[in-house]
């Protein structure tokens, strides 16, 4: 789920719930307040009007007292003679009444009435107001006046003259006539002063003023007759009466009562006016409801808007502050993932996001650095700093493409350090590594010089490229070959450079290299072809004695293929029982007696027939197949020897060739020991033939193993003596019994005096060292004679017998035995 959605889902309740709560609270409070306000306004309206009226009444009452005290009023009413009153006092008194009315225009009628109700003097400020009658004696207003006694009466009623509501205020004029009456005489009622006060304002307010928007007021008497009401309203008397009772009975004065008028539910409150009149204010419930609804709507709207705005703003802000940056960072991460390490986040805010972005950029930077490092490591050899195989291959492809395009040539030089393994095993890997580094230096230097030379020649081809393919293998790509000889010349220079002694750990080392050279496009069009063929060429160089360089020849490839095929065959040869042990007798030189046999491995390939040992033994050794094969040889030889012994051939020592490889990689003493035990052969009847390289490569180990063999009672012969580097001093250290002179010495012993003397020397020295000497490869009598002369102990060769299968040896041994006997 997207972050935005999550936030929204979280935000919404967080905002909505409090908003709702607030809204609800606000609504209830506002609602209550507004209702209270409406009711308060209702009450205020009627209070106001009632107050106004009260004030009017009070003022009128005060005024009437004043008016009644006016000299002229008093004189007027005290003047009993009608004529006098009317002729003399009437005018002036009218003028006085006029002045009252000017001061109080609402007192539109002022009258002085006689005790019987006759209107003696009447002034109206409304000229059109005709007097209905002058005889007011029966008028209920007059009756009320009479009944009021001494106090001022005030009541509201309809003025019969105009049918309108008026406030009637009246006062009885109870006076003493100072001119006539005796001092102590009580005052008598002379008449009444009556004010008729206009209530148009009240009527208009009550009739027209609106309570709220749809409310109204009305004035009703105790019986429920509405004296003033709006035109549109008519309410039954009984209903109004009821309302009055309810209002009177309510506990709180400012709480309206609820009632139904003309089918409409309404709130009503009231206040008493003058003389049992009541002023009611009616507010239809609908209005309150409307207010409530409007309020609810407002609250809801505000809430909604607030929620939307708040949520929207929050979302926008979060989007801006968080989501967008995060997304951007995600994009950046993808970019980084895609390998685009050169990124800029564009997020510069001074907060955690900004820091994250900075971290991202830093990460990308360090990734780039790591990447570069890895790239470097991926393409360079750590030890030497040279480009490695991977880089070389890429480069090679690039050069091939370039060469193809411009139809140019280039050369590959495949360089292998001879016997590097020996050095590595003997001196340790550390030394070996240092050796490699030294080699690298020399090669590089050589190349630079070459390059310098090349540059001097004015060529502008790409540089030579030196790479370490692994182990002790190097490869050089030579882009510029002016003539086919240039690679050779370089190879020569390289070999020379490496032939100089190396000084490592105070040891002097002599190393050599074998170099194979291939040319593009002659020796291959594809990279792997060129390399393989260079390898083949290099291998060939090794076969030719190492420390040289060879150009690739196609036949070498074939050779290599054949070799590989053979190897595969050989792998299976042991299983398939294609291997045979042949035996070549070894004779005592002096007696001619067969004293032993050398076991020789033969391979009979069903397809190709017998395969020469010179061919397949190296293959076996190179491939490591020599181990199982060698083991088999030992076992078979022991078995065969034992079989002969059982057959009663006499003391015949079987000599078994053991490869240096076997010594290096196997516990040869153990193998032999196991074979002896298995076969039951006496150890003295077994001889191990080893080559010099066994001793040379790892002298200490060799001593160990040989000693172990000796302890088992086996004799040891050193094969191909003279062909290696070994010196006699070495031999002294090793438990050797026999020395076998290599056939190369023997072959021209008759022709080459030097060789004859060497052989004689060897024999002599060996005898001094208590060693037996065996001469191999004797082919004619002359050689035999010579060797015998020199005291050679044993002889072996075609002259006597070629290697024979086991059964034929058995026959031979039988015949020989017969012969000797």
């Amino acid at each position: 789920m997207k972050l935005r959605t999550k936030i929204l889902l979280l935000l919404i309740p967080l905002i909505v719930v409090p908003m709702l709560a607030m809204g609800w609270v606000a609504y209830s409070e506002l609602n209550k307040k507004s209702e209270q306000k409406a009711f308060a306004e209702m009450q205020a309206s009627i209070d106001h009007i009632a107050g106004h009226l009260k004030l009017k009444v009070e003022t009128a009452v005060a005024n009437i007292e004043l008016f009644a005290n006016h000299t002229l009023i008093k004189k007027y009413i005290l003047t009993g003679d009608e004529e006098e009153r009317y002729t003399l006092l009437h005018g002036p008194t009218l003028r006085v009444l006029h002045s009252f009315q000017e001061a109080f225009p609402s007192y539109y009628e002022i009258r002085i009435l006689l005790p019987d109700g006759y209107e003696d003097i009447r002034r109206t400020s409304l000229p059109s107001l005709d007097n209905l009658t002058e005889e007011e004696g029966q008028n209920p207003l007059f009756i009320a006046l009479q009944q009021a006694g001494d106090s001022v009466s005030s009541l509201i009623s309809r003025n019969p003259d105009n049918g309108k509501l008026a406030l009637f205020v009246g006062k009885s004029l109870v006076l003493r006539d100072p001119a006539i009456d005796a001092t102590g005489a009580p005052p008598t009622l002379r008449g009444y002063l009556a004010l008729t006060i206009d209530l148009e304002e009240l009527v208009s307010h009550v009739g027209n003023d609106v309570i709220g928007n749809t409310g109204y007021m009305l004035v009703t008497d105790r019986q429920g007759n509405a004296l003033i009401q709006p035109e549109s309203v008519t309410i039954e008397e009984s209903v109004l009466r009821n309302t009055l009772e309810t209002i009177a009975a309510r506990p709180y004065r400012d709480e309206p009562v609820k009632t139904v008028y003309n089918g409409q539910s309404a709130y009503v409150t009231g206040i008493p006016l003058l003389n049992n009149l009541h002023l009611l204010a009616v507010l239809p419930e609908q209005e309150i409801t409307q207010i409530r609804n409007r309020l609810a709507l407002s609250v809801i709207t505000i809430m909604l808007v607030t929620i939307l705005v708040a949520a929207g703003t929050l979302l926008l802000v979060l989007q801006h502050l968080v989501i967008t940056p995060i997304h951007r960072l995600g994009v950046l991460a993808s970019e980084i993932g895609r390998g685009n390490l050169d990124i800029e986040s564009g997020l510069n805010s001074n907060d955690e996001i900004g820091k994250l972005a900075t971290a991202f950029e830093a990460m990308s930077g360090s990734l780039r650095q790591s990447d570069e490092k890895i790239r470097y490591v991926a393409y360079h050899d750590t030890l030497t700093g040279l480009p490695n195989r991977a880089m070389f291959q890429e480069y090679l492809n690039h050069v091939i493409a370039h060469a193809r395009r411009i139809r140019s040539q280039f050369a590959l030089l495949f360089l292998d350090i001879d016997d590097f393994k020996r050095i590595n095993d003997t001196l340790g890997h550390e030394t070996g590594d240092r050796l490699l580094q030294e080699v690298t230096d020399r090669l590089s230097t050589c190349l630079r010089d070459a390059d310098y030379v090349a540059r001097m020649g004015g060529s502008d081809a790409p540089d030579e490229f030196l790479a370490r393919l692994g182990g002790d293998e190097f490869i050089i790509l030579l882009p510029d070959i002016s003539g086919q000889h240039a690679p050779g010349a370089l190879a020569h220079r390289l070999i020379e450079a490496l032939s100089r002694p190396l000084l490592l750990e105070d040891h002097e080392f002599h190393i050599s290299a074998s170099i194979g050279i291939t040319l593009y496009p002659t020796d291959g069009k594809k990279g792997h072809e060129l390399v393989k063929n260079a390898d083949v060429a290099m291998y060939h160089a090794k076969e030719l004695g190492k420390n040289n360089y060879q150009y690739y020849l196609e036949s070498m490839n074939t050779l290599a293929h054949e070799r590989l095929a053979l190897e595969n065959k050989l792998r299976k040869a042991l299983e398939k029982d294609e291997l045979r042990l042949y035996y070549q007798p070894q004779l005592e030189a002096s007696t001619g007696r067969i004293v032993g046999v050398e076991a020789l491995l033969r391979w009979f390939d069903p397809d190709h027939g017998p395969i020469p040992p010179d061919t397949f033994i190296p293959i076996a050794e190179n491939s490591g197949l020599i181990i199982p094969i060698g083991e088999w040889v030992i076992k078979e030889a022991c078995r065969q020897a034992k079989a002969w012994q059982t057959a009663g051939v006499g003391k015949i020592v079987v000599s078994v060739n053991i490869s240096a490889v076997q010594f290096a990689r196997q516990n040869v003493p153990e193998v032999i020991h196991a074979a002896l035990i298995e076969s039951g052969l006496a150890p003295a009847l077994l001889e191990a033939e080893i080559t010099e390289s066994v001793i040379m490569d790892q002298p200490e180990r060799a001593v160990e193993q040989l000693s172990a063999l000796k302890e088992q009672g086996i004799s040891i012969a050193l094969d191909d003596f003279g062909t290696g580097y070994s010196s006699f001093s070495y031999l002294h250290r090793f438990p050797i019994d026999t020395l076998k002179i290599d056939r190369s010495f023997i072959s021209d012993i008759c022709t080459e005096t030097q060789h004859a003397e060497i052989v004689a020397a060897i024999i002599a020295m060996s005898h001094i060292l208590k060693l037996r000497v065996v001469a191999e490869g004797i082919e004619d009598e002359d050689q035999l004679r010579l060797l015998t002369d020199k005291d050679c102990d044993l002889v072996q060769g075609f002259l006597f017998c070629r290697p024979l299968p086991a059964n034929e040896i058995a026959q031979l041994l039988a015949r020989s035995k017969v012969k000797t006997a």
Partner: protein
Amino acid sequence: MIRSTALVPFFKSMAVLFVFFSLPASAADSSAQKPRELVLLNWSEYIDPELVVKFEKQFNAKLTEVYFESDDLRDHMMLETDGKAYDLALVNGISVDVYRKRGWLSSVSGTQIPNLKYIDERWLDAFPGLEGYAVPYFWGTMGIAYRKDLVPTPVSSWMDILQPAEYLHGRIGMIENSRDALGMALKALGYSANSTDTAQIKAAEQLLVAQQPHVKTYTYIALNEESALVSGDIIATMLYSGDALMVQEHHKEIAYVVPSEGGNIWVDYLVVLESSKNKALAWAFLNFLNEPENAAQLAEFVYYATPNKGAEKLLPAEFLEDPVIYPSQAVLSRSEFYKPLPPRVSKKRNIAFSRALQSMD
């Protein structure tokens, strides 16, 4: 007779003060004593100041006048003070009886005032209740004074001011007296000024009510050079005959006419108030006024017809022939004296007139 003055209230209080602080004095005493005081309630400019000075010198007296602007207002002042604030009062004929009934008047006789022998007898009973209580002062008519030069046609009817033409709107003066205003309205309608008929009274009231918007003032105009008639603020006004002649002195284009329907013939009397403490001096004053030379001087001052036969002999022919002062028989026959009215009718008329004054100020 009416004079307009705003000083009435002031003088009223002055009068009251005088009354309280005047020392009683015998009429015969003179030089050694403080001057005796008399207060006369009168119209303004209704007595020659020179005569007053002469009287004061002769009798070592001090005469103070308190003015009223209309008969109604005088009645009001009398009522207010209950007739006790003054020594002498100028009362129109029709009101004397009521005053007498009220007990405000003290009797006058030939014994006290010997010069009464000069008075023409017909004035002594022109109105009921006069005899023995009032001394005739002057008589005249009430008509319309107007500016000849400011009207296209001469004013000749009451309707000219009661239903005024456009050019008289707001330039009319009326008298604030129900007898005069209502009476003349009745006469304008062809009725008697003393009509008791309700319908007629109603009609007259309506006439007055309709006229009211066009009336500039109900206050009696001044009669000096500052008079509204002189300035032209008022073009036509109800005015007493002599007052018209008086104001004519200041502008010769002022004319006086008793309208065709007739006017009112009034008679003014001087009375001695019962409450006076200087009755002897009052009598002496009344006697002084009726010396023929004094009466003649007085008549020439006020431009009114004197009831004093002795004075008449001394007056110039020019005066005696002035039709304004001495109207023709025709005029006299058209005009009416005010008669007493039944109380209820008075009441009605009062109410009617009061309505006319309604929206005045």
